[in-house]
């Protein structure tokens, strides 16, 4: 038994520090019969239709990966420079990859990572070669199709020196219940840049536990945009990000809505280790209809010349709850860390201002909420920006 498995075994009953505890024995891994598809057109329509709600288009030539339950149905590299493979294949192909497997996420972090390490996992491996810059977003997608399935995902993304990539990942479900467990390890090498946009769309009885680790070398940049506007039974994630290198930077934008009794607990923890490293954590949250939202964030200034800002804003509509827990920690003179948090209902003045321009109270509220959810997301392709706005617009409209 490998060391990873041994550590995992000991942690199988280790509860996660955050989020409701879910009994994994109620779920089973779901494998699809049949082979991998050679082209995206062959993916059955009942699957491709589902993923449109997370902005992934199977017709696009930039579709790189498609997984249903536990089975990788499709993967395609984009030229020489951007290699995309199911992780299981990549692990066989590249012996060195085991040095990057369960390195940024610990197998014994909690019972979920332990479960993941001890069961067959599948996910995408994306490797952008040195100096390659891809401007169109690579699309990947993970779909839970069968009721009661546990989807055990493991992704490894490597951006080699001076490379640049945008990735759009959509995770969604066609089933009412299911468990999405996703380990993601991101390696941003010197002067490389990954902009990663993840759009989630879950169902009433989905439990979601992403486990993410990011390491950024000198001059590297990692931008993470996370959007989840659907209901979900519980969603909890707290990525660890190490800005290791000099002048490395990380930006986390999160846009979420906890509605219809959804329980969402999200944050990110960024260690500013490199000289001149920078981080920004920004979240916009809505809680409504007994939704419960916890917005965390933790900036750790681990060197005397780092800068970080944390910003949590929340709107409560009706009877939702928002709890923000921002933490900043500096151990050196010269660190510049700040946070601001604000939670409340929409200001009446703003509603009446718009009503005095002819809108009804509902219309006014909806426009203010949409404005509030507009986070200035830097440097992402137009198409992605539009997609995000569309999803936020549609879901906030439904709120009213």
């Amino acid at each position, binding site marked *: 038994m490998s060391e990873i498995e041994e550590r995992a075994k000991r942690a199988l009953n280790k509860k996660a520090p955050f989020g409701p505890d879910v009994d994994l024995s109620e779920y089973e891994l779901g494998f699809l019969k049949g082979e991998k598809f050679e082209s995206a057109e062959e993916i059955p329509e009942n699957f491709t239709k589902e993923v449109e709600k997370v902005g992934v288009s199977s017709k696009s030539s930039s579709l790189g990966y498609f997984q249903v339950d536990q089975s990788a149905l499709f993967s395609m590299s984009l030229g020489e420079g951007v290699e995309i493979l199911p992780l299981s294949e990549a692990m066989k192909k590249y012996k060195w990859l085991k040095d990057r497997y369960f390195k940024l996420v610990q197998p014994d972090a909690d019972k979920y990572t332990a479960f993941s390490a001890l069961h067959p996992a599948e996910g995408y491996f994306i490797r952008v070669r040195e100096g390659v810059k891809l401007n169109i977003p690579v699309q990947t997608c993970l779909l839970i199709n069968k009721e009661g399935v546990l989807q055990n995902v493991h992704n490894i993304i490597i951006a080699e020196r001076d490379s640049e990539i945008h990735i759009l990942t959509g995770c969604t479900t066609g089933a009412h219940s299911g468990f999405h467990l996703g380990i993601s390890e991101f390696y941003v090498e010197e002067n490389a840049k990954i902009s990663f946009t993840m759009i989630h769309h879950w169902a009433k009885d989905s439990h979601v536990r992403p486990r993410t680790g990011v390491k950024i070398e000198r001059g590297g940049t990692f931008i993470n945009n996370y959007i989840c506007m659907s209901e979900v039974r519980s969603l909890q994630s707290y990525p660890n990000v190490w800005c290791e290198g000099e002048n490395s930077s990380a930006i986390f934008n999160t846009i979420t809505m906890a509605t219809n009794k959804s329980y969402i607990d999200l944050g990110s923890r960024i260690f500013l280790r490199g000289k001149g490293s920078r981080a920004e954590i920004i979240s916009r949250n809505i809680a409504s209809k007994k939704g419960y939202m916890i917005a965390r964030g933790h900036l750790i200034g681990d060197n005397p010349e780092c800068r970080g800002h944390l910003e949590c804003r929340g709107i409560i509509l009706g009877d939702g709850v928002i709890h923000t827990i921002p933490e900043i920690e500096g151990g050196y003179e010269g660190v510049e860390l700040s946070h601001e948090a604000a939670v409340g209902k929409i*200001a*009446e*003045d*703003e509603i*009446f*201002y*718009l*009503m*005095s*321009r*002819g*809108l*009804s*109270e509902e219309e006014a509220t909806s*426009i*203010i909420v*949409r*404005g*509030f*959810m*507009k986070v200035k997301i830097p440097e992402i392709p137009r198409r992605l920006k539009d997609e995000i706005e569309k999803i936020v617009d549609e879901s906030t409209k439904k709120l009213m």
Partner: protein
Amino acid sequence: MLVVEDLRVEVGRKEILKGIDLTIGDGEKHVLFGPNGSGKSTLLMTIMGFPRYKIIQGRIEFNGVDITEMAMNERVRLGIGLAYQHPPSIKGVTLEDIIKICSRKERIGEEERILLEKLKMPTDFLKRDVNSGFSGGEIKRSEILQLLLLKPKLAMMDEPDSGVDVENIEIVGNAINELLRGRSGLIITHLGYILKYVDVDFGHVMMNGRIACSGDPHKLLSSIISEGYSRCASCLR
């Protein structure tokens, strides 16, 4: 057009308007003077329909319809418009968004462009969050622009000429003049700069929640400027 009868209004349990009677006929332009805190803005906000201003007595009629209890957006539909003294800023809602709301259009067209030009508002303003970081003069121009697009039958303006420099007063003044062509107007002003650009028919002085006197706006203004409000106070008695 507008009839206000014996209007008493409370804000936060404090009586601010203590019995106002005011009638504005079709196409008439009225100005409202009065010291700080006398209740001028309160009157306009009440006519517009802010629920915070509680009507405890009296009624408001607009074109024969009793609007005392009517929701604000319905008053807008009937043709009442207000340019604010202190409009709020709204995060993520741009001037362009507001323009589209006022003009009821999907996108900015020729008419809007011409007005922006007239009001000397460069197009990069459109992408800015409304009123956020706008200078005093910019707020006034943006408010007038919104009224020009709303095309109300009665345009109420709360101090459109306060804090506006000499060049801007001309821009704002001409725009208000255009706005009021064929419409009724109720304008609050302290120093009456706007009277240079707009022909007004009547003036009123508000003192401590009451209209102390009414008459020729130019005469009222010159008396206020030379003697302050002391004479108006005696007028009330």
